[in-house]
C-alpha cells in the first residue's frame, strides 16, 4: 500500500478485512459519513453502507455491549471508542461482559471483537482526551491488549486482532497518527501477539516501551548513541500477552533497563514488567529497573508535554542505571 501513516493504515486495513470477511462490521460514534473524528474509518461507510458501518448513539455501553451481542451471533465487530478516555462509561460492558463471557459460559459463548481507541497525550486534549488506560485492561482477565507504534505493525496487529477469537483492546497512539510515514507492505500479513519487536540492538542499557512513547524512547536512544552509549530498544507491541522472554533475555544480557510508559506511575503496567524481571532474573540485574512514566495526577492541559516521559526524563533514568 506504499507510504502510509498509522491512521491511513487503519482505514486501509479495515477496508481489506471487510472485503475479506463479510462478518466484519464497524460501529461507533461518527464512524459513518464522517469517517471517524480522526478519519480512521474514512470512506468505509460510502463503500459498505449503513449495515456494516454503523453510526451509534452516543453511548459507549451501547457500542461495546452491542459488539458483544453481534460477536455472539457470529459477526466480527470492530468497535471504535472515540477517545480511550471514553471507555469508562462502557467499562462495565468491557470487563463484565466482553472479558468474562467465554469463561462464565464454559466456552459456550464468546466475543471475538476488537475495541479500537486512540490513546495517549501530547495533543493538547486535557485530561479527557489524553489518558492511557492500558493498565486497567491488562489487569482484566479475558482481554487481550495491543498497542502498536508504527504503520507496519498497525496493519499486522490489527489483522491479527480482527481474526482473533477473543476480545482485543486495540490501542492507537494518537499523537503518532500522522507523525510517521513508512512503507507498508501490500500483502496480507499478521503479527502474532506477545512478540516484541527489537527496534535497536545495544549493549549498555535496555529501553522497553510501547505505543506512543516509542517515539520518545527512540529519540532517547539516538541521543544516547551520540554520547557513545548503545541502547537496546524493545517495542512490546502487545501488553497482554507481553513478551516476557524477549525482555528477560535482553535485560539478563545487558543488566540495566529503563521502562517507559506514559500512564500514571502508581501500579502502571511497567510495574508488572519490573516485578517480573526481579522475580525471574534478579541476579542478572546490575541496577534496579527504573520506570519512567506519567505522573500521578489527572492528565493536565497546561504543560501536557512536560507530563509525558520525554527523552530528557528517559536520559536521566538511563544515567541513573548506568551510574548505579
Amino acid at each position, binding site marked *: 500500500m506504499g507510504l502510509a501513516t498509522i491512521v491511513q493504515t487503519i482505514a486501509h486495513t479495515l477496508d481489506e478485512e471487510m472485503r475479506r470477511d463479510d462478518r466484519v462490521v464497524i460501529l461507533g460514534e461518527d464512524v459513518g459519513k464522517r469517517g471517524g473524528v480522526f478519519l480512521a474509518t474514512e470512506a468505509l461507510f460510502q463503500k459498505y453502507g449503513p449495515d456494516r458501518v454503523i453510526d451509534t448513539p452516543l*453511548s459507549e455501553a451501547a457500542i461495546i*455491549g452491542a459488539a*458483544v451481542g453481534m460477536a455472539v*451471533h*457470529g459477526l466480527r465487530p470492530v468497535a471504535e471508542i472515540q477517545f480511550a478516555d471514553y471507555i469508562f462509561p462502557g467499562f462495565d460492558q468491557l470487563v463484565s461482559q466482553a472479558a468474562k463471557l*467465554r469463561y462464565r*459460559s464454559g466456552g*459456550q459463548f464468546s466475543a471475538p471483537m476488537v475495541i479500537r481507541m486512540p490513546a495517549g497525550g501530547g495533543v493538547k486534549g486535557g485530561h479527557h482526551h489524553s489518558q492511557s488506560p492500558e493498565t486497567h485492561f491488562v489487569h482484566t482477565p479475558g482481554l487481550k491488549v495491543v498497542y502498536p507504534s508504527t504503520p507496519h505493525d498497525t496493519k499486522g496487529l490489527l489483522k491479527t486482532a480482527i481474526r482473533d477469537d*477473543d476480545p482485543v483492546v486495540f490501542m492507537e497512539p494518537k499523537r503518532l497518527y500522522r507523525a510517521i510515514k513508512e512503507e507498508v507492505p501490500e500483502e496480507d500479513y499478521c503479527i502474532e501477539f506477545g512478540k516484541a519487536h527489537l527496534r535497536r540492538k545495544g549493549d549498555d542499557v535496555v529501553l522497553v516501551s510501547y505505543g506512543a512513547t516509542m517515539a520518545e524512547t527512540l529519540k532517547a536512544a539516538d541521543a544516547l548513541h551520540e554520547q557513545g552509549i548503545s541502547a537496546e530498544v524493545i517495542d512490546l507491541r502487545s501488553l497482554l*500477552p507481553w513478551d516476557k522472554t524477549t525482555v528477560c533475555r535482553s535485560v539478563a544480557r545487558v543488566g540495566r533497563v529503563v521502562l517507559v510508559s506514559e500512564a500514571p506511575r502508581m501500579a502502571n503496567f511497567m510495574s508488572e514488567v519490573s516485578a517480573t524481571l526481579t522475580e525471574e532474573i534478579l541476579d542478572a540485574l546490575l541496577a534496579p529497573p527504573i520506570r519512567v512514566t506519567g505522573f500521578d495526577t489527572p492528565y493536565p492541559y497546561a504543560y501536557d508535554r512536560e507530563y509525558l516521559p520525554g527523552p530528557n526524563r528517559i536520559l536521566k533514568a538511563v544515567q541513573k542505571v548506568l551510574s548505579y
Partner: protein
Amino acid sequence: MIKDSQLFQPFSEKPIRLMGDAGEWLGSFELNLDSDTLLKFYRDMLRARLFDERLLLLHRRGQVSFVAPSAGHEAAQVAVAAALKPKKDWVFPYYREPGLLLALGVPAVELFGQAMATRADPNRGRQMPAHPGSRDFNVFTVASVIASHLPPAVGTAISMKVRNTGEVVVASFGDGATSEGDFHAGLNFAGVQGAPIVFVCQNNRYAISVEYHKQTAAETIASKAEAYGLPGYLVDGMDVLACFFVMREAVARARQGFGPSLVEMQVYRLGPHSSADDDTRYRPVEEVETWKTRDPLARMHRFLAHRGLWSREEDLALRTEIEREFRQAVEDAQRAGAVPLEWMFEDVFAELPDHLREQRRDLL
C-alpha cells in the same frame, strides 16, 4: 416502524388481562388455543414452581449455596417461552428465570448441574447458582451485573436484522434493572436500529428491598418505552394468557421487521429476594398475603378447572411425575461429578496463554 397493533394497544392505563381472578375468560376475542397448549402452560408453570422448591430443599441440605425463588413469576416466564421458536430465537434472561429455561426445553439436569457446579453444567461450574445459560437453546448465560445483558441482547438482534435471519431476541429483567444505564443504552439503540427484540420487564415492585416508587417516578415501566420510540405494553403478569397473547404479538411484529417493543408484566415475588434475604425487614406480611391470593398457578388451575380441562387427581399425578423427574435430574447432575480443578484456567481465552499455563502449573 411500529405496525398497527392487532389485538392490543400500547400504553394502556390498566394492565391487559385475559383471565379473571376466578379463572374466567375476559378476552374480547374468541380464545383460539387448543387444550394441549393450555395444559402445557400449566404444566410448565408447575414445573417452574417445583423446580424452585427442589432447589430450596437442596439449599437447606447444603448442596446448593444460593437460590433466587421465582414463585409468582411463573406465568410471565412460561408465556415468554411459549411465544418463541426454541433453538431458533434467542433469549437473554436474568437470574430469576428457571421457568423460562425449563419451558424452552433446557433439560432440568443442566439447571441442577449449574446450581451445584457439576459437570452437568454446560457452563462448567463457573458461576454461582441461578446463572444458567445454554448454547443449544440460544440462551445467553446469565451475568450477575443487573441489566448488563441488555446491550449484548440488542447487538444480537442487530446482527439478526443485518443478516435478515428471521430470528427474534427476547431479553428479560426486573423493575430494578430499568434504572441502570445499560437499560437505557440498550433500548435506545434497539429503537434506532429497529432491531427484532422484545424487552420483557418482570415488575415485581421490589428490587431486593427497594420499593417501586423509590426506583422510579414513572407511573409504569411500560411508559418508559416512549423515550425510545417503542410501543410499551402493560400486562397482568400473573395472567399467563394475557402474557402469552401480548408476547405473541410483540414477537411476530419483531419478526416481521416492525421493530422492538417493551412489555411490562406486573408480577409479585411471593418469596424472599433470595436464600440470603429476610423480606420481613421491608415488606408487610399482609401485602405478601394479598398477593398470594393472586398466585398465577392457582389462577390457571381455576381457569382449566372451569373449562373441565383439569382435576385435582390429574394435578396430583402431574406433581408426582415432575417430582420424580427432578429427583432423577438432581441425581444425574450429582453423578456427573464435580468439575475438575484444572478447568479453572480454561476458557479465559480460546487458547491457554503462557502466563495461565504457568499459573496452572504452579497450582496443580
